[in-house]
């Protein structure tokens, strides 16, 4: 099953490589990985999406912990969390399609970030599932290019 793992790491040269290389060396699936600085500039947060049976995931978590540059490893999958992904979607634009494109973009709360005579780029934010659906529904209009950020996630606050 799919797991969403949040990892706090030292914000150092080579850390991303250490994590990615560990996944490939041990044959673990790595669906997406995203990384960025946290409120502490010495620490970065990685969000990793991986798949596997429980036994594999338990190894993934332990192997992540074993890396010297990882500070904290949390499997968010079964904990309350918010998960988001950013999609930049560039579509072909014509008089006949523009109305429909705008309408659909509205449904997904998309934001137009660039528009030219023959192309339009829309920004979407949502769960990876929502992003997948958006891509599927826009596909018939002709996708020029797309870029996805990979998931980022964080714990929900205590109530």
């Amino acid at each position, binding site marked *: 099953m799919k797991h969403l793992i949040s990892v706090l790491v*030292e914000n150092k040269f*080579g850390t991303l490589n250490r994590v990615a*290389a560990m996944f490939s060396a041990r044959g673990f699936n790595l669906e997406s990985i995203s990384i960025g600085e946290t409120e502490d500039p010495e620490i970065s947060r990685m969000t990793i999406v991986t798949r596997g049976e429980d036994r594999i995931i338990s*190894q993934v978590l*332990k192997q992540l912990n*074993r890396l*010297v540059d*990882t500070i904290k490893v949390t499997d968010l999958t079964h904990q309350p969390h918010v998960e988001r992904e950013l999609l930049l979607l560039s579509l072909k634009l014509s008089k006949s399609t523009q109305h429909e494109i705008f309408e659909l973009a509205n449904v997904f709360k998309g934001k137009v970030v660039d528009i030219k005579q023959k192309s339009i780029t829309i920004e979407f934010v949502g769960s990876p599932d929502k992003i997948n659906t958006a891509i599927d529904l826009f596909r018939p209009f002709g996708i020029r290019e797309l870029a996805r950020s990979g998931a980022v996630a964080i714990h929900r606050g205590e109530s």
Partner: protein
Amino acid sequence: MHNNGEKLIGSEIFFECLRRENVEYIFGYPGGALLKVYETLHDVEDIEHILVRHEQGATHMAEGYARATGRPGVVLVTSGPGATNTVTGIANAYMDSTPLVVFTGQVPSSLIGNDAFQEADIVGITRPITKHNFLVKDVRELATTIRKAFFLATNGRPGPVLVDMPKDVLNAECMFEWPENVDIRGFKPTIKCHANQVQKAAKMIAKAKRPLLYVGGGVITAEASEELRKLAIDQQIPVTMTLQGLGAFPGDHPLSMGMLGMHGTYWANQAVSNCDLLIAVGARFDDRVTGKVDTFATHAYKIHNDIDPTNVDKNIKVDLPVVGDSKDFLASLIEAMPKSREDRSAWIAEIEKWRKQCPLDYEIEPDSLKTEFVIDEVSKQTKGHAVVVTDVGQHQMWTSQYYKFTEPRSIITSGGLGTMGFGLPSAIGAAFGVTDRPVLLFSGDGGLMMNIQELVTAVYNKLPIKIFLINNSYLGMVRQWQELFHQEKYTFTDLASSNPDFVKVAEAFGCKAMSASNPEAARNAITEALAYNDGPVLVDFRVIRKDMVFPMVPAGGSISDMLLARLNPKTMV
């Protein structure tokens, strides 16, 4: 000796840090990126630099030293090819959890990434085979980095750490500051075992009728042999050891079952297959131990103590994991044991029955030489009081079967990686670390050739290593598999027509050498070699060429199904 607050250049800081880490020996080879270091070394008197002849030799020497003494081995090599030549040794140390600190010179910071002369991204190359590694970018970070490197190499599960030092960093000046304390927030190994888990383990042990201790190198690393001995004897639990665990429990004790696994003893493997409780201590359920995992110790409740949590449930699902140092585990277990326990005499009698059924034995033929005889004879003449180093292959397995290891840190061998060429240099390293026991090397002819240049290092330093060359002029273990499983197609394993005369080779290096091809000559040669202490001595034992190591579990087979002899390879017991 320098003080905190003194202005020093990088190369002086380097040696001052090694001094403070109590380093006795550096195994190294100079080169362009290290010129400043070697300039500084000229006036360093309290740390001895051993000049090797190939950087792979340096890493294996450092491993031999580390395994013999329990202290980290230190390697110093230049950038580019100097650094890449250490890769095999580093990978070997990583697999066998040997503490090493490898220092590599690097091209000046300004040239990194430019494909400069003798540049290699050694930090990138060694990331998957080191416990951790560092590129020092600023001389002000050098001391802290070296401190961290030694700390990481020796704490928790030990392993190799690499520190890459650009040339300009070694030349730059700064105020020296020795960090007394190390705090690495991402590295907090669990040393103390969880008390509840230990309590549970104690209860399970007390009520087990057929318990078995399965002990690995972690017990040696943790210096826990005394605790192991006490637990095993008090509780009457037979002990089987992995290749790296040999010596953790005295091999001549009735409760010792020798090694388990692919070339383990028949009775150890039968005991694993029939025990009701398996207590794994400092071992990692390696595939050479378990054979087919689905049939491994299926009747047993499994307790697993290891300092590295990733070893738990990696290959075999266990019932009771106890993460922590093996010495702490065994000591707390002894404390926690209930007063009464099950009687184990029937279980021990059953094991004795298996032992008698298929003992380790061999026949002596007057005109030919069997490896088993050579190793048995060396074992008898040294009474198990020696540091025994091996290379990799048939002789290594025979050593594990026929040498009676009675003390911890008495076997040094490449277990995880199976590195041919490991033997000679690691025997050299061991001989620097240990002077109260003889250092013996058993090597095959294939493996000896892989790092034979280090004979110079042994001769030059007058190291009294006994090199027992088990010469069948075959890559014997590969040949064995070719015979058993590959239609007897002996492709590229016969070295008879290409091997040199090893006696002459040794003599050309200035090493005393002799040969033996029958038991009588072998016995005399062993006596003579053990008495010779003016430098290394090589004995070229011309053993029976096509002998095979038995018993044997075919790859992927169940350890309860062993091939017992060559004549009837299809007869499984």
